[in-house]
């Protein structure tokens, strides 16, 4: 068994560290995966506002490739996850569309496997089992888990967790020995898609999210979305700056992996100093 691994474009660019840390964690846990050969862009953030068939065909191509490998497709990127899930859902529920997409792709997508987020994969592995692999407890690290939009919405198909009151990320994070703070803005939108077109608005959104985390005692934010990470990391303007980690970075740390191997040196807000201060890195 195992999974087809779909990094997506972000993980080859701005979110390189997410790719690094994801692979590091999967390798460490011994989860079998193969990078989807000849994968292509899922069309996230723009295709679906342009052309519905295109927006489904792009992810469908990757889904079909994975299905041909007889493997479920897994991606760390929340935006890719959203597009893949959306296409999977659309193709399974709309035979007319499926036919159209078939003519585009030339091969049929049967939808045997649900596309997964890396969080699903870790969850399938089991939080307890993950916890058993932790060698370095991230004790006294207070973390605000931040889900953003794409993992949870629209709930028709995103379905990673309860869209209004999720908790799966907290459970994973707590396996590392860190404590997850209870805070309200876990599912607030950070505005990433407007990052360039309405920067002012985005700054205020990002800042209010980080501030709220600070008010609830968080020392850092953890996310599973390259868009959120980049946006929060870059656009926060509050008095206290919080580092924004990928969930796989924290897990990697807890597994005792080298911060460099996890890409922790590539953050905007210094991601190492907090860890140093806590003697975690």
């Amino acid at each position: 068994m195992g999974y087809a691994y779909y990094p997506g474009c972000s993980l080859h660019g701005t979110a390189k560290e997410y790719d690094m840390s994801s692979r590091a964690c999967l390798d460490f846990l011994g989860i079998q995966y193969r990078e989807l050969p000849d994968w292509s862009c899922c069309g996230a953030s723009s295709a679906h506002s342009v052309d519905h068939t295109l927006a489904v065909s792009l992810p469908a191509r990757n889904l079909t490739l994975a299905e041909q490998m007889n493997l479920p497709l897994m991606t760390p990127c929340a935006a890719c996850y959203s597009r893949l899930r959306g296409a999977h859902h659309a193709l399974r529920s709309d035979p007319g569309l499926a036919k159209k997409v078939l003519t585009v792709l030339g091969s049929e997508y049967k939808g045997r496997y649900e596309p997964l987020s890396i969080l699903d994969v870790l969850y399938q592995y089991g939080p307890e089992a993950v916890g058993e692999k932790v060698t370095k407890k991230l004790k006294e690290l207070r973390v605000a888990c931040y889900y953003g939009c794409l993992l949870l919405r629209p709930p028709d198909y995103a379905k990673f967790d309860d869209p209004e009151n999720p908790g799966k990320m907290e459970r994973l994070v707590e396996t590392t020995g860190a404590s997850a703070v209870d805070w309200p803005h876990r599912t607030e939108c950070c505005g990433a898609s407007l990052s360039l077109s309405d920067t002012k608005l985005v700054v205020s959104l990002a800042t209010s999210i980080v501030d709220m985390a600070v008010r609830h005692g968080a020392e850092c934010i953890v996310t599973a979305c390259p868009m959120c990470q980049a946006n929060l990391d870059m656009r926060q303007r509050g008095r206290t700056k919080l580092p924004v980690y990928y969930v796989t970075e924290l897990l990697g740390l807890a597994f005792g992996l080298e911060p460099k191997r996890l890409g922790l040196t590539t953050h905007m807000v210094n991601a190492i100093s907090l860890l140093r201060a806590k003697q975690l890195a």
Partner: protein
Amino acid sequence: MIRVGVFVCWCGSNIAGTVDVGKVAEEAARIPGVVHVEQNKYTCSDPGQDSIRKAIKEHRLDRVVVAACSPRMHENTFRKCAASAGLNPYLVEMANIREHCSWVHSDMSVSTPKAVDIVRRAVAKVKRCVPLHPSTIPVEKRALVIGGGIAGIQAALDIAEAGYDVTVVEREPTIGGRMAQLDKTFPTLDCSSCILTPKMVDAASHPGIRILTYAEVEEISGYVGNFEVRVRKRARSVDEARCTACGICILKCPTSRDSEFNMGLGTRKAIYMPFPQAVPNKPTIDREICRHFTAGKCGICQKVCPSGAVDFSQEDQVLTEKFGAVVAATGATQFSVEVYGEYGYGRYPDVITGLELERLISSTGPTDGKIRRPSDGKIPKTVVFIKCVGSRDENKGYPYCSKACCMYTAKHAILLKEKIPSASAYVFYMDVRAGGKDYEEFYKRSQEMGTRYVRGRVSRIYPLDGKLIVQGEDTLLGERVEVEADLVVLAAAMVPQPDAPEMARKLGISYNQYGFFSEAHPKLRPVETNTAGVFLAGTCQGPKDIPETVAQASAAAAKVISLFAKSELSTNPNVASVDESLCSGCLWCSNVCPYKAIEEKIITERAGKETVTRTVASVNTGLCQGCGACTVACRDGAMNLLGFTNEQILAEVEALCL
């Protein structure tokens, strides 16, 4: 030889305007078996009906086809007409050449041949009609009311007043239902207990009413006039006859749990009365928590009881009784608002539901009528009300309007202002629905008292520094709204009881997609069900407020009374019928019968020189409603539906395809 008479109706110009009636009559005359055809301007009129009667006699007709309007309109009229001429009424068939033909086609060249086909169909069918005779069944003049809330109490009182015996079955230890939990009632703000408890006492003391509390209906079989009902009366562990309701047992009981009556905002003992005015006014032991039952220890209540009423050895009683009619008044429950993760109910103690607020306002409630917020007991200064929680929401709740919430929220806002004049109230709403006598005025009054109505949904509630931050949108202003509240009240929707589908199955009635019981007709038969003899009262049929519930309960009672006024009932003769010679006795037909009307019967017959017994299906014509699902399940062709037989339908198909 069969002698069919065909009566083609002009219906003034309704038919004759677009169908060549003369041509239809001419063609009808050519159909084998038709011996008489005539046309009438209005066949349903007195002269029209006379002509049918006359023709039956003159032409010795033994079958009649009336080509006119829909059978749903006049089938009964013409059946009666035929009966008055001595013809069995079930030998009449209608050809619907008006609704299905003249009214929907304007071109005579297509409507006329179609009308001819329709007449052919009717003739083909009527030739295979046989005389049918309704049978009669006796009526057991005792009513069962399931549910002892205000609906059940009202229905029981009305039926008993008419002189018939009523049994009320209530699963809680007391009657009273939801209404007993309420503090005040809108729009008059009179005290709920003050108007309910006298009725509870009336019911309890009425000689015609027997109340079985702590009891549940387990099974209902039989049919209108003759239901057989099995009721399980759970062991109360208290001898009701001996108990004097002194209350010492309750006082001394060492075990307690959250009080259901107080919506978990207070506690009650293991031996308890849900509330002081409970009827019957006798305690009940909750065996789930009572230490005598859980640990085999304790027994204090038994020791302290001055009259020796506590009886740990009491056992459930199972009663099986006959009733002629059943009123379902099983009520509704409150939507599980935890589904709305954004409101944080369950995580934040100061987010409560409307019913919980009722208990906080009520002087018999856990705070003695002082509104205190659950987290720290502080008097709230700012209260946010959110309406449509679970209702009018296809994503998380139900699409329907829960109907009473607008008014009870207005009531809550008014009561809040009365109790805490300095408090401010915000109501987030989608629409305010105040249709009802004095309702709009009541809503206005809540506004006038300073309640701020914000049209919009709340997107998130989170605690911050001891407050609840309520984020939402004012869609009228197009702005985000943020309120720092001390208490948030969710107007949770009324939803069906979780076991409503199971109850519906016991009753043999249908329910809608949500679980509310379905009435026979939404407009014209609102308290009847598709199962004769089963009537509906109150919120089990859909969300309702108290006045509506009481009105419907009385209506259901009236239906029961008019049923009981007859000494026997005649049944629909269009029922299933078994040809025993063909029946293999597989009984698969009984599986699909919604009325459990098909039973197993052992017959004895001669086969060659031997006498053998075998099983066949047998239809209880009192139960059968004539749906015909069994006929299709029957491969043998043994099961048929009188009035819609296989022979008839196949002949109709053939006639239409000629």
